[in-house]
């Protein structure tokens, strides 16, 4: 459609993931953990992937993470044209689970992006959704 550029994708919550997105809107990274085996996990789902228990609860993660791996994409997805090249990262939360994210406040260069660098969560407004992204943690967060 000429003149109508697609925007960035906006996630659509499901009943199982709604508490996660509600947490994001409140400025908190809420994930789940198992009350039987104790393991935290991500992405949201009603069964513990480690032991199969349905006895799970939501909790607020620290928001601290480290940079596990990434690519710098030179081919923008719809809506990301002005951002390219941009980082698509996977971070490891302090609690253990990993998640994909974007990085804010850091140049998209290999020199600036050192694996295992400390990060902290922040939120980007995307339509009705608050999307968790990560930014380098200052000294006070380490």
């Amino acid at each position, binding site marked *: 459609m000429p003149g109508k550029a697609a925007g960035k994708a906006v*996630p659509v919550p499901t009943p199982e993931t709604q508490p996660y997105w509600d947490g994001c809107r409140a400025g908190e990274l809420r994930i789940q953990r198992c009350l039987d085996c104790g393991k935290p996990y991500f*992405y949201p789902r009603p069964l513990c992937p480690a032991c199969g228990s349905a006895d799970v609860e939501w909790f607020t993660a620290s928001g601290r993470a480290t940079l596990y791996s*990434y*690519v710098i994409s030179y081919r923008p997805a719809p809506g990301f044209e002005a*951002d390219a*090249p941009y980082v*698509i990262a996977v971070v490891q939360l302090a609690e253990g689970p990993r998640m*994909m994210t974007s990085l804010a406040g850091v140049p998209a260069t*290999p020199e600036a992006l050192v*694996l295992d660098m400390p990060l902290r969560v922040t939120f980007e407004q995307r339509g009705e959704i608050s999307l968790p992204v990560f930014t380098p943690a200052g000294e006070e967060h380490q």
Partner: protein
Amino acid sequence: MSDVGVIIAGAAETDEIGRLPSHSTLGLHIEAARNAVADAGLTMRDIDGIATVSAPGPVQVAHALGIYPDWLDGTGVGGTSFLLHVRHAAAAIRAGHAKTILITHGESGRSRVGVAPRRVDLSSPAGQFEVPYGILGPTTTFTIPALRYMKEYGLTHEQLAYVAVAQRQWAAKNPRAMYRDAITVDDVLASRLVAYPFHLLECCLVTDGGGALVITAADRAASFPRPPVHVLGTGEASQTPMISQMIDFTESQMFRRAGQKAFAEAGITPSDVDHLMIYDAFAHVPIYGLEALGFVRKGEAGPFIADGHTEPGGSLPLNTNGGGLSYTHTGMYGMFAIQEGVRQVRGEAAAQLDRADISVILGNGGMFASCGVLVLGRQPR
């Protein structure tokens, strides 16, 4: 397990591969099927089972061919699906559910003729937890584990680039390969960045084409015009629907699991393997495959390839058609990896090896999502 042996009695690709705007995806299935059935010396009336990926699907492909099969498999788990079809077909033949099974692939990956538009479900797990971060297909997802591997095991950018260099040496021997001109590590590193650390020449092609196989019981081998290719062992496994949730970014546990099953069934070890195909959508995948299958230890695959062991004249010929990086890659490349394994075992490959009694094919689907492994042999088990 039943002692019924299973063979690949017919195997063929479409007349041409590459840029085929005159063919739809369904048209490519039909051409590949016709060629494979003819290669087996059969007619469509001899086919009583059909397998292909979910789009266009076994019902559509069978109907287009004038076949009304009594056995169907629509397993669609990405580019490795056809390896799983071979495994499922072998089980069906042993169970007596079908006698002569046709497996087809066709994909207008480059020209996009007769292809359903891609739709992203933004309520799926990937739609909620990966797509919003700007991923755009395999180049931005399949590639993400590589930097972690490079940090943990010291793989260099030059070694990663050499994977493409080695495979181009095989492609140079293959008139059907899309790219045949020799390249150097410098050429690879000078090609444009697609998704750092991956340059264009470390990413697979995007092409049109198809291929098909005819699977049947080994006791019929003498009735076919072509030398039988015995299916000695098979394995399949799944891993992750989202790259961010891969358990360990430095190894593929599904490659290992499927490989162990296939090797055990065939009764072989890595030292028995004459010829190897590892799905190479990107340059790091053969590295993960070599280590998971036990050909080298963890962290050794990059230097192993860079030292020339997998190129022409090396001890472990790998991706001898040129692979997805240089031969062809329609999107679901697994069928072409099987075809090259069949050609080598039959002795009719463009870059034919002196000895190809045992060929192993490792297929990947999605972004480290699903895996199939086949062990093919010139002789029965």
